[in-house]
């Protein structure tokens, strides 16, 4: 009885008749189905089936039958699409670009957001609630609009920034070959810094007061407390933010897509996501696009797993040190 009983054992104990218990269980099962049903319909329709489709597609190719007569037919081509994608220098270049982008963006984001949260948590910031709200503001600006704003701020003639720098005899081509990646990092940083700061700040608020008081009694200064006490305590949030930032960064699409309208430095296969779009909807090569999608998916899963493992190892080391 205990193993199959509904969640509240106390109910079961109090219910006098066995028949009633059965009715309860049935009605609970019914309620559970009604509450979960809609979500799982969506789960199957817009997640499981698409994932299965993309994997299936990556092993097939639309081959024109001889002379181009008759209907197209899908033929099994095994790993041909994967080999084509992995030997395509534009795809590998895009992957390299995104890895470089992540290497610049993620450390800046995590350190920046955490530093701001620690500063706000230090208790000496004036107008703290207002500062927080303003820093959070870009989260309400859609990605494409953030990209438009910054694109115009990068464009000579439109931008007061370029003009001000010009007056100081500094010419920066924000959309030039070397600057275009940092320019994109800046857009992403501007958009998400405040949001992640709020997450860190919330986690910092949950740090027990006794721990901080103990640190003060032990003679730790504010900086030391922040780095040695508070930071390790919000480690789960750091991992979560790093992971979500990574997943989003690997999908890099909106910013380069918009900037590509204004600079020749961004090709139509600049990032893996743009490669997928280009392969599927410009070249109509679904097999190739599907293989590239699966590779991107595997990279995302592998890297996320890596982040989790790395954070666990770090956590264990900390345990051992204690």
């Amino acid at each position: 009885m205990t193993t199959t009983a509904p969640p509240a054992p106390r109910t079961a104990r109090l219910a006098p008749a066995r028949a009633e218990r059965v009715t309860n269980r049935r009605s609970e099962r019914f309620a559970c189905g009604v509450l979960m049903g809609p979500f799982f319909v969506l789960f199957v329709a817009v997640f499981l089936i698409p994932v299965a489709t993309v994997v299936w597609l990556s092993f097939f190719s639309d081959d024109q039958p001889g002379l181009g007569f008759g209907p197209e037919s899908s033929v099994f081509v095994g790993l041909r699409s994967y080999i084509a994608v992995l030997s395509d220098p534009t795809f590998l270049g895009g992957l390299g670009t995104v890895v470089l982008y992540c290497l610049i963006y993620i450390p800046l984001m995590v350190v920046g957001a955490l530093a701001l949260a620690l500063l706000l948590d230090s208790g000496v910031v004036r107008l703290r609630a207002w500062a927080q709200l303003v820093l959070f503001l870009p989260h309400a600006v859609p990605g494409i609009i953030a990209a438009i704003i910054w694109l115009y701020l990068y464009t000579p003639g439109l931008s007061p920034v370029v003009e001000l720098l010009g007056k100081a005899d500094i010419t920066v081509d924000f959309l030039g070959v070397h600057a275009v990646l940092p320019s994109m990092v800046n857009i992403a940083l501007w958009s998400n810094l405040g949001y992640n700061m709020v997450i860190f700040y919330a986690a910092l608020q949950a740090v027990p007061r006794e721990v901080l008081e103990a640190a003060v009694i032990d003679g730790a200064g504010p900086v030391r407390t922040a780095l040695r006490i508070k930071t390790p305590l919000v480690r789960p949030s750091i991992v979560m933010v790093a992971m979500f930032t990574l997943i989003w960064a690997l999908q890099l699409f909106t910013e380069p897509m918009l900037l590509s309208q204004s600079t020749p430095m961004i090709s139509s296969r600049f990032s893996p996501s743009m490669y997928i779009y280009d392969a599927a909807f410009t070249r109509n090569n679904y097999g190739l696009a599907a293989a590239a999608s699966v590779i991107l998916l595997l990279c995302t899963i592998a890297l996320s797993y890596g982040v989790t493992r790395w954070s666990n190892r770090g956590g264990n080391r900390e345990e051992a040190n204690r």
Partner: protein
Amino acid sequence: MTVTDAPAALRPRLLGRTTVNVVVAVAVLYTLLPVLWLVLAASKDRDALFGSEVLSLSDFSFAQNLRDLFGMDGGIYGRWYANSLLYAVLGAAISALVSVGCGYAFDKYRFRHKEKLFGLLLAAVMVPQTVLALPLYLIASGTGLVNTFWSVFIPVLFNPFGVYLGRIFSQGYVPNEVLEAARMDGASELKTYVRVSLRMMGPGLVTIFLFQLTAIWNNFFLPMVMLSDQKLYPVSLGLYTWNSSATVSPEYYPVVIMGSLLAVLPLIVAFVLLQRFWRSGLTAGAVK
């Protein structure tokens, strides 16, 4: 190590305070100035915009730009805006209810393979949108839904992270004793959910709604793949096409700027009005 850290403890408090406030002020300016530029630029006509006279308050043509925006291309911007509101508000509302219901069921009911199922669902958070776009397009074109309202509306209802949050909120806000009491009173499970539990989870529901509202308002890749009819575009995709026209015909620049400004407003209003709720919601998501 003690040598580098010691001055921090001994540092005059005033200097420390000033440094902290200056750093935060710089971050605030970095955040605010681009938005301020957008507001100022929206009030300029095209010549002033390219004359880089954005900071002067002469040639105030805010109203003119607004008229141009809603007159451009047969007033299609209004249409895009209405589409975005419909996709985002309705989509986020349905999505939040679906996710919270599912998260609540995960928390309060026991069934076989529950944790495995939950793990699978969390794994879905990791799958990039761009990976799902091609198969979703092929499915939509197979069922004749491509280039319709539904092709953009249905996929955004799926929010596995919302279920995760819903489960946490259910744990935090709805004590099991309340459900037991309701069961003792003979209320049916679903009635209890609607009348009691859902109300107790109100702040959580609002948080999930806001997250999804932002996500749908931001949505760009999926509409770009699915839609070819400009009348169905959301604002994001519309502004993207106008921006590409602007590189050829500069009369589009002022309307893109004004259009961007208007497109930012609903989310800012929503976030400021509902501050109380999402702040507590973020805490729940972060501490777990």
